[in-house]
């Protein structure tokens, strides 16, 4: 084919251009579905409980990702400050993931358990009362806003369609019991969602207001879980290198 015939035929030019540029995309994307080591084989990672899931929704809707990343990179300085680098396995149930790319505030990938519930609640309501030099805005309305979890089942079913193992049938539930243990499997059962959300909100006084379930409860529950699922003391130096 003469080059000129491509240049003067715009339809053909478009088709061939698309073919050429899609090679780049295919080479980068397709292997991720086939390379077996992409997601590390690691114990402890589970889908979010209904309360954590609502907390995560609030994290997204309040735009926390705009200033906070959830991605500790494998560098010595990051390790010293934030802890073990993030694993792909740790965000396998995130849709979309919250890695972020901007750190106006600190990374939150392992913030779970670092501060008390009381601290988290007060810090979200009035950051400057604890850290005077902070530029984080106040999120005090989270304390006054009742958590709307009327559609929690729908939210779980939507995530299930993307591959998160929330269970609806008995078989799926049994598979979860096998994989995550009974306590976790109960939390992941869609028809249990409201009960388990209320139970988790009551089990710990997340926001200092035991009589009602607020958006603060959900967000603090989510934050306190971040980065705590994998017990890194069980793995030796260099264990996760094999997945690269």
């Amino acid at each position: 084919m003469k080059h000129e015939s491509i240049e003067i035929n715009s339809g053909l030019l478009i088709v061939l251009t698309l073919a050429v540029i899609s090679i780049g995309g295919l080479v980068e994307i397709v292997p991720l579905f086939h390379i077996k080591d992409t997601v590390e084989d690691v114990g402890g990672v589970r889908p979010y409980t209904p309360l954590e899931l609502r907390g995560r929704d609030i994290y997204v809707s309040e735009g926390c990702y705009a200033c906070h990343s959830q991605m500790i990179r494998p560098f010595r300085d990051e390790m010293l400050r934030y802890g073990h680098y993030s694993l792909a396995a740790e965000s396998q149930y995130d849709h979309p993931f919250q890695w972020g790319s901007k750190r106006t505030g600190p990374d939150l990938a392992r913030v779970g358990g670092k501060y008390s519930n009381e601290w988290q609640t007060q810090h979200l309501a009035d950051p400057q009362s604890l850290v005077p030099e902070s530029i984080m805005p106040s999120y005090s309305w989270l304390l006054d806003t009742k958590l709307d979890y009327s559609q929690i089942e729908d939210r779980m079913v939507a995530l299930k369609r993307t591959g998160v193992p929330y269970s609806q049938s008995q078989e799926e539930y049994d598979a979860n019991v096998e994989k995550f243990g009974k306590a976790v499997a109960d939390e992941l059962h869609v028809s249990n969602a409201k009960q388990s959300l209320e139970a988790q909100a009551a089990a710990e006084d997340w926001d200092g207001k035991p009589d009602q379930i607020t958006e603060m409860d959900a967000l603090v529950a989510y934050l306190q879980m971040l980065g705590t699922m994998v017990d890194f003391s069980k793995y030796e130096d260099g264990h996760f290198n094999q997945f690269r």
Partner: protein
Amino acid sequence: MSQPENKKGQVETTGHVWDGDLREYNNPLPRWWLWAFYMTIVFAVVYWILYPAWPYGDSYTKGINTVEYTVENEQGEEVTVSEAWNTRALFTRDMQSSPSALAQEEWVGKVKDMSFEEIEQDPDTLQFAMSMGNYTFGDFCAACHGSGGQGKIGQYPNLADNAWLYGNSYETIVNKISHGIQGMMPAQNVADDQIDDLAKYVLSLSGQAEISGEAASRGKQAFASCAGCHGAEGKGNEAMGAPNLADAIWGVADVPGCGDDTACKLDQIKHVVNNGIQRQMPAFGDRLSETQARMLAIYVRQMGGN
């Protein structure tokens, strides 16, 4: 495609002709640009050979470049592992043997082997411990105690003042960091007709109020139930973490926030007496090594007056 014409005095064209007479000038790429472009191609080929590059099947070419680090095998021996280049292996190597990791390890080792008294006498080690303590404080303590250790009245103790609830020996500070603290003053059941005198008496201990005569003796009598922890003269008890009430430093009742308003000061004190206070500091023993806690103690101790 015909060859471009190249007659003298005529601009070279690409040879393309549109609509019978439209021609396109041929402006070849500068030589340096072209060579730079060829170099990037050579670079890419070298990169493919050295580093992970091309995917195939369920794997990818790993490259011939390697990274070495040590691991402990099942017999507990240190063995060197050589692995195809990847960022995680680089990280493992950096944590083990980068110059900064080795330098830090050396100094941390010195701190570990020295007593607090020896560290105080050795300016270099002291400086290292202080800067490590500073960084650790910023990451683990500043969120509650403030970046300057100023704390927050009523919630998180001020570490930068002269008052040390549990004393300021290094050993005590390390102990509190590692094991945490459960601070508790129970709510007091003081009769309504006594609470005013008691509050005034407490305020008078630090010379911020005048109290005399019968009121003073009634206040002192009511204070008897406080004396078990705070001492008969209100001087506090470091073993229990009961604060000294006879100095003008306030950690729970926000007396300084009242300015000169005595009624407000009394209300603050009454509030604490009636409601008690419960404060918890988490244990950091799981997150910080003993040596880290010791360096932190050195840093924290110099923040406050001794």
